[in-house]
């Protein structure tokens, strides 16, 4: 009797097959969601030790320089792109460059800065970070400085951190860049968007 019942349960019927497919689809979606969250992780960014200087008027042309070392190239590229995008509404012109940190002198950089006729030079140097268990940089700490090229003075500086999954480096960089630009707007170093 029991055996017969068991066999009946296993016998596929259209209704059971439909329920099975639905459960399998739900399971797959759940597994994908868990995998995506585990691989991606959440992105966070913060600013610390913000120091402000004085600037005669908001900067309109900003040159962004991001040092690569000790991170891999994609981190520096992501941060440069994110800063240029974040500054887009706040400045009339902006340009970015990634440095390896092994340049013998600053001639090439200074030439590029001069050619661009920049008002401000925003320099980001990675000063530390934390590795994830899989080897990527789960947390990156930058020392950020904005120099007024006309007066050679630092007008804004901060310690910038971004952390989270290594698959969301662009998102982490974007968050950090937006926070930096917000802080610069509050300091009147760059103007508010659309003004």
């Amino acid at each position, binding site marked *: 009797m029991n055996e017969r019942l068991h066999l009946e349960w296993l016998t596929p019927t259209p209704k059971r097959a439909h329920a099975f497919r639905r459960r399998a689809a739900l399971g797959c979606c759940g597994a994908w969601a868990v995998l995506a969250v585990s691989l991606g992780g959440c992105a966070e960014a913060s600013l610390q030790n913000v120091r402000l200087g004085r600037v005669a008027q908001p900067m309109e042309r900003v040159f962004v320089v991001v040092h690569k*070392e*000790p991170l891999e190239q994609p981190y520096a590229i992501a941060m440069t792109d994110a800063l240029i995008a974040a500054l887009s509404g706040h400045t009339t012109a902006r340009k970015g460059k990634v440095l*390896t*940190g*092994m*340049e*013998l*002198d600053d001639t090439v950089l200074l030439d590029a800065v001069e050619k661009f006729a920049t008002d401000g030079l925003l320099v980001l*140097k*990675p*000063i*530390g*970070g*934390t*590795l*994830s*268990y899989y080897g990527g*940089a*789960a947390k990156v700490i930058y020392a950020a400085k904005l120099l007024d090229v006309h007066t050679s003075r630092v007008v804004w500086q901060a310690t910038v951190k971004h952390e989270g999954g290594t698959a969301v480096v662009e998102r982490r960089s974007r968050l950090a860049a937006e926070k930096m630009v917000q802080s610069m707007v509050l300091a009147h170093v760059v103007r508010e968007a659309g003004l």
Partner: protein
Amino acid sequence: MRRMPLCGRLPFHLFLWIGSMTICSCASARVEAVRRNLASHDRITRLLVVIVDDESKDADLMRASIHGPLEAKRIDHQVIAISRPSRAPSVDAAIVAFAPQAILRITPTATIRSPRGARQEIRYDASLFPAGDTERRIWRARLVHRAGALVDVGETGISHRMDLLARQLVDQLIADRVIGPS
């Protein structure tokens, strides 16, 4: 007391060896990515080494470690440690007193931590400038001081790795014909 038979001791020792290798794996000290611009310079025989202190105790260790290899290669030298500012008054005083041909500045650039929070890797920038012109580098290298996967860089064998790093740095400077005996 009964001793463990040899066949029992061997796996035990093997286990200990594998365990210590896992904990200390990949510990290294190396000089990499050397850049030089020495077209118009003679070999330097009198060198001032400036170590920038990042408030860890590593600067003292580096100071002690670099003295030996420079002494062994018979290079006139003086080593000083300074805090963060790139142009401290003590450097100017040392330049006047010692009259070096060049300044080798060693600066910690980044500290990478493991997921447990231990310092896993410390990177330094070693830059050589003519004594009168600290804007124009004539030689540059990146120094990488790496601890094992599970230990803090300052915990195990740091003095040994600092010695190794200093020796490699001096060897690289000699191999590049940047410095030489007086």
